[in-house]
């Protein structure tokens, strides 16, 4: 205990808001407000709207996975339920002329999500771990199956559709245009994210972390692990419902697909890709995932293969997700040694990128070879047009992949040394 390498932290009574706390939120608001001025097309707005829905859902999901240590395989159920109920409300407003402005719909989506989560959570949160995961899977399948059985509620296979423009205009806006919807969703995204962040700073939010780390010890501090999990679960259900309402507003339709097991799996992937250990991780995951999904799918039919590979690589090599990779660099930046990493990064990552391009070219050629209509043997890849039945093309792709891999591997030792050097304080212990 005589070790003094760690500087004694000065305790700051954080009772006043600091710029550091407020700045990220102000930046996010400014960013969301200004984004449509840069990307004006309707296609871009569609992608951004989807992105915001995914952000809210992924953050809600991470209240369970990252914050509370509960692995759910059926969280789309709460999004779907909130969304379906919002479609019914939307239709009721249209039929009966109820004075409910559209932008308030997410409150109701949230309340329905919360209601369902309260019921399910009352028994599913008794245990964490495998038991919780299995219950979530079972409930997910059960309710997803109900969507095609209880037609009144979920509309069967065609789902429930409505029209968001029939409600009362709000300050003259009728939500005919995509951009108006964008700002409604943007408002709810920021508000939800802020509330979820603040939740993590409350006593029950802090105890959620404690229960995640060590449920037994938490019990010996006066907290029932089960009730701590229950409150996190309810809060998560609320925000999943908000995301469902955002789906209802944006797409004006909900189908069984919205609450399917596939959807539940996707959100797990999104959260993990972004990094469950950090509050902002799922936000990064949602942005990257939506971009890959919408942009990559324009160029290739096998985009899911790439997504799967990326996910696998994340799980195996960067369990902290993209946020974890970013945060790994904070100590380096603090030491002011980021410069040491630039060249090794270029020397390793550039060949690695070449290798990835080679592998993907190989995949695309094989896919084209197998699936192109007979006679159509010409394909274009990376602005080069060639015959996909020509063995030479495959060979070139393979050589590029192998060469890139070899160079990257050869230089990775240098990167490792540089990483070590960059993380070692000057004059400190090696």
């Amino acid at each position, binding site marked *: 205990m005589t070790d003094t390498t760690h500087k004694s932290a000065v305790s700051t009574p954080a009772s006043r808001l600091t710029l550091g706390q407020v700045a990220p939120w102000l930046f996010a608001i400014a960013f969301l407000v200004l984004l449509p001025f840069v990307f004006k097309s309707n296609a871009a707005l569609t992608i951004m709207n989807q992105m915001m829905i995914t952000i809210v859902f992924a953050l809600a999901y991470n209240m369970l996975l990252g914050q509370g240590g509960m692995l759910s395989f059926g969280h789309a159920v709460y999004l779907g339920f909130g969304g379906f109920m919002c479609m019914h409300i939307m239709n009721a407003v249209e039929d009966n002329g109820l004075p409910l402005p559209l932008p308030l719909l997410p409150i109701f989506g949230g309340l329905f999500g919360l209601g369902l989560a309260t019921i399910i959570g009352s028994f599913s949160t008794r245990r964490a771990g495998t038991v919780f995961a299995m219950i979530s899977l079972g409930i997910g399948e059960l309710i997803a199956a109900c969507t095609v059985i209880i037609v009144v509620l979920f509309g069967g296979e065609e789902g429930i559709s409505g029209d968001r423009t029939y409600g009362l205009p709000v300050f003259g806006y009728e939500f005919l245009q995509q951009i108006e919807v964008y700002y409604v969703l943007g408002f709810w995204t920021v508000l939800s994210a802020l509330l979820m962040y603040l939740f993590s700073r409350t*006593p*029950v939010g*802090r105890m959620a972390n404690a229960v995640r780390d060590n449920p037994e010890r938490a019990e010996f501090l006066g*907290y029932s692990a089960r009730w701590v999990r229950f409150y996190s679960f309810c809060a998560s259900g609320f925000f999943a419902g908000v995301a469902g309402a955002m789906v209802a507003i944006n797409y004006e339709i909900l189908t069984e697909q919205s609450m399917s097991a596939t959807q539940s799996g996707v959100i797990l992937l999104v959260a993990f890709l972004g990094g469950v250990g950090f509050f902002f991780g799922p936000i990064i995951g949602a942005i990257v995932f939506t971009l890959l999904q919408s942009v990559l799918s324009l160029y290739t039919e096998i985009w899911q293969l790439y997504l799967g590979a990326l996910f696998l690589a994340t799980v195996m090599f960067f369990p902290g997700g993209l946020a974890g990779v970013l945060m790994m660099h904070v100590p380096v930046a603090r030491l002011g040694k980021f410069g040491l990493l630039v060249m090794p990064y270029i020397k390793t990552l550039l060949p690695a990128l070449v290798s990835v391009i080679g592998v993907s070219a190989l995949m695309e050629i094989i896919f084209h070879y197998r699936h192109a209509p007979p006679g159509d043997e010409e394909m274009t890849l990376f602005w080069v047009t060639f015959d996909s039945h020509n063995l030479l093309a495959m060979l070139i792709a393979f050589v590029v992949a192998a060469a890139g891999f070899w160079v990257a591997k050869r230089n990775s030792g240098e990167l490792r040394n540089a990483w070590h050097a960059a993380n070692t304080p000057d004059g400190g212990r090696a």
Partner: protein
Amino acid sequence: MNAPMSKTAVPALQLEGLRKSFGRTEIIRGVDLSIQRGELHAVIGPNGAGKSTLFNLITGRFAPTSGTVRLHGTDLAGMAPFQINRMGLSRSFQITNIFPKMTVFENVRCSLLWSQGYRYSFWNLVSRSRELNEGADEILEQINLTARRDLPAGVLSYAEQRALEIGITIAGGADVIMLDEPTAGMSHSETDYIVELIRKVTENKTLVMVEHDMGVVFGLADRISVLVYGEIIATGRPEDVRANPKVQEAYLGAALEAEH
């Protein structure tokens, strides 16, 4: 302290006919023990005597097969650990049991939440409570971990984690503190540090402690119970226990010779 008065008052902890079986094996075989308020009580005994099981029975981790545990006169039967904790009993663990991914400060702050009345609040922000944060910093000061405040608890040295374990145990202000082998696996200097710490933080409190280090036991305890094969064969002041022939025969003789 006011020893004569507490003698007449309700004992802090009272065990009556406590038994625990796992399958057909009886681990605790009828334990009667009364620990007065303000007493520093040590439970010693050879390996496998059932000391940790006894702790687990008292703190609600296991349910007794028969017998009763009373805390300040209240029967604890059927209560969960968190309910017992809320009644003012707090324990540490033989194997370090902290929140490894949270910072040292967070570890301590979490242990203050219930006792400061926050319950399952989702309308208070922990950073805005001066009482909470200053309380946590005070505990850190007491357990000498202020310099480690913002590190994840999992990266602390073994002795520091043990100190944190004690900090978490005492933070909630419980008046009955139970420590399960607080100095296990420590060097001499570390042991001295922990003993000083225990003495400091258990002032005016009731302490029940399982301990192997006889130096610690005889230096710290007001009374000692010797547990052998699930039964208490002797209870009394250190010098009486030391002189007890049954104890010497069963356990202490060898240990004492090694000690002196």
